[in-house]
């Protein structure tokens, strides 16, 4: 079984973010980056499926040179090889353009299954996986908290609202977007870190994927970032004072008389 895992390198959750000079994105200089949290679970899920089925795990990312570190980390925990779409042409792509590039990789690799996180921690659209599935014409499941793969199909548990789950059986190949918490991602062993250096990281240009540069990156996008800003500080906040019982009484009173929601 050949499993593709689409990962994204995003600003570390502890990074202090500021809008860039153009105001259209954040200033990426001097901030730490990490593998998107949901994608870490996808990597773990893929590796454990491959361990059980004897398959191969290929991690794929679209991103600049720095994103190679994310691929190395995935290789260090056990992925077998990596595909890096680092060409300048891929830069600035929206979910659509990114999904198109990933779909071309999936066709080239003939994956049996694609795993990814349900959404990215930076823009958080949660649509790349869905678009990828539709471009490939594959079935797809989102917010997946349980996955069992056997005999050409997958039993998928999806998280619904109000604590309910949905159980689906979908045919392979498919795109499965996992939810954080589906498993316990392992640590890279020192041996794994050593071996990661010797594993293949293939850089593929749009031409390698038989794509025109106008189909990917900013040129192939349908969405444009107009501006990014820090939310303005709110005014008129009230701090209630007193012990817990007093504060609770005041709060209920305000919810009744001022907000009128009770």
């Amino acid at each position, binding site marked *: 079984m050949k499993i593709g895992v689409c990962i994204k390198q995003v600003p570390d959750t502890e990074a*202090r973010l*500021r809008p860039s000079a153009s105001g259209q994105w954040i200033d990426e200089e*001097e901030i730490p980056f990490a593998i998107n949290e949901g994608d870490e679970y996808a990597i773990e899920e893929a590796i454990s499926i491959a361990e059980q089925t004897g398959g191969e795990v290929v991690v794929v990312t679209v991103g600049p040179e720095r994103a190679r570190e994310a691929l*190395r*980390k995935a290789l*260090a925990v056990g992925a077998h090889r990596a595909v890096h779409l680092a060409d300048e042409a891929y830069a600035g792509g929206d979910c659509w353009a990114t999904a198109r590039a990933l779909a071309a990789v999936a066709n080239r690799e003939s994956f049996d299954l694609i795993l990814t996180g349900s959404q990215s921690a930076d823009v958080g659209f949660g649509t790349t996986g869905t678009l990828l599935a539709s471009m490939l014409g594959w079935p797809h499941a989102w917010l997946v908290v349980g996955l069992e793969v056997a005999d050409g199909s997958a039993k998928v548990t999806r998280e619904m609202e109000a604590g309910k789950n949905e159980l689906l059986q979908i045919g392979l190949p498919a795109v499965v977007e996992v939810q954080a918490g589906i498993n316990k991602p392992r*640590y*890279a*062993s*020192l*041996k794994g*870190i*050593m071996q*990661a*250096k*010797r594993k293949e990281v293939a850089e593929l240009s749009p031409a390698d994927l038989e794509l025109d540069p106008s189909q990917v990156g900013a040129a192939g996008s349908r969405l444009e970032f107009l501006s990014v800003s820090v939310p303005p500080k709110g005014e008129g906040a009230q701090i209630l004072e007193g012990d817990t019982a007093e504060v609770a009484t005041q709060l209920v009173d305000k919810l009744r008389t001022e907000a009128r929601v009770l």
Partner: protein
Amino acid sequence: MDFKADLRDLRFQLFDWLPMDELLATGGFGDWDRESLGMTLDEAYKIAQERLGPGNEEGDRTEAQLADGQVTLPESSHDGYRTVAEGGWIGCANSPEYSGLGMPHTVGTAATDLFAGANLSVTLVFLLTRGVGEIIERHGTDELRALFCERLYTGHWSGTMCLTEPHAGSDVGASTARAEPLGNGRYQVSGEKIFITFGEHDLTDNIVHAVLARLPDAPSGTRGLSLFVIPKVRVQADGSLGEPNDVRCASIEHKLGIHGSPTCSILFGSEGGCEGYLLGEPHGGMRVMFEMMNSARIEVGIQGTAVAAAAHQAALAYARERVQSRRWSDGRDADPVAIVEHPDVRRMLFTSDAFVQAMRALALKTSYCLDRSHVEEGEAAERYAAYVDILTPICKAWCSDWGFRVTEWCLQVYGGYGYSKDYPAEQYLRDIKITSIYEGTNGIQALDLVGRKLRRQADAVRQLLGEAAGTARGLASDPTLGPSARKLGQALEVLGRVLTETPGKDDGPLRLVLNAVPILDMLGHVLGGHHLLEQARIAGDRVREIVAAKGLEDGDADAYRELLQSDADAAFLHNKVQAAVHFAHRVLPQVEALAAPIEAGETAAIDAVL
């Protein structure tokens, strides 16, 4: 409270200050390179935060429990141990032939800085396990190496070092444990050893004790001690476990700190059935044990650094959140501010930070010299080995003593809450105290330094202090660091005078033994000041590069302040410079004060009636 570490400083010291490329270029470390070593630090920090840190308080509160000769530890300790062992961290710097990972000790030291800061108690068993594996690898027969090394480096079994007996502590030569040859190449050992760290526990299936004991024809004193490898459970020829080996835990100590680390009294052969293997030559045990102790002493210096660093990070986080009292310069009706704004709190925090950085530098540099001594040849190897010889007691004692003081200053930052168990400050203070005591008390370290090392390694001392003098001279006219460099120059002058003149005095030997600890402190202070200034020079250059790259006008204070607010890396580098200035002005002048009684020949403690 989550464990936090200054990973940025670890990286800076490892990769921007120490000549790591030179070390890797020697070819002694296989495929390890900057990128993969950097990745190991990230992974070590994750394990420290997620697997070792969470069990630190539980280990302290529940303590190791002894029942029916078995010691049990909480599940969180098992989880931390398993994760570290499975990741290959125990044998990270050991020989790949026995499943070690062959990375530089220097980076292993950095990992220990993270592990020990997160959970000192559990980290002790890694040190001992690795240490026993190393001496078996170097001195064991093929049989012993095959049976034990890999199982130790991979953490399947753990190790201990057994020196102390009830009447033989610092005076190891008074040991009475005995060993008789059994005729089959094995020995029957009997005796009681006390203060055995992780002497009994339930983390592994077997425990491999390295035990000093006396053969029948042995001379008295340390020259008659031989070293034996004694597994708790006998090991069969194929490495599988056999019968129990008459090794019994009689009791565990109830201690001030490191409650998660069982400190055991172990009875060997109380029923006449304890079999062991001789390691090395008959009567040559002390020499081999010293090899293990020397690496352990470096690691204890790292432990002091690590716990102090963790205490500092926790106190800093608290001070940033705790709001109390208005700013000293504000009007009477001003709002209260976070206590990190108060000058006295800042002083305590920043002195702690500067000491932690200096301690980390000393520990990493000692490990770096150890690596170079292994991979270089001829004169270079000897020179680095001499550096290790001289730096080891300073690393052990200076980092553990000043680490303890750092934990005290950090506790003080919390005020009354620091004294309560609701915050981790008091545990750090209790846990770190052992580091000035075990692996040879700091008094013993200082005597080793002034009695042996300063004489035997006089050239190496001159070279190390010569490097410091070079830094002082090189920075003397630097606009920012010049005054600090001159403080280093003055401290070096006083230290040089004490080292050259004291031995020649009529009462020179007395002055040296009486003042061994102050002399060790003088050396530690000077090396600390030297290392911080070297780092400040690099950091200062970087800050200037950032200022230039951002197009800020030289001397535009507002723009510079804004840069420090918005650019975390610039702030870090700026603080490196401040740390060197702080240390040079507040710690280096103490060298002269420490020298005063030595040069005056003051001996009141000897003359007093005690």
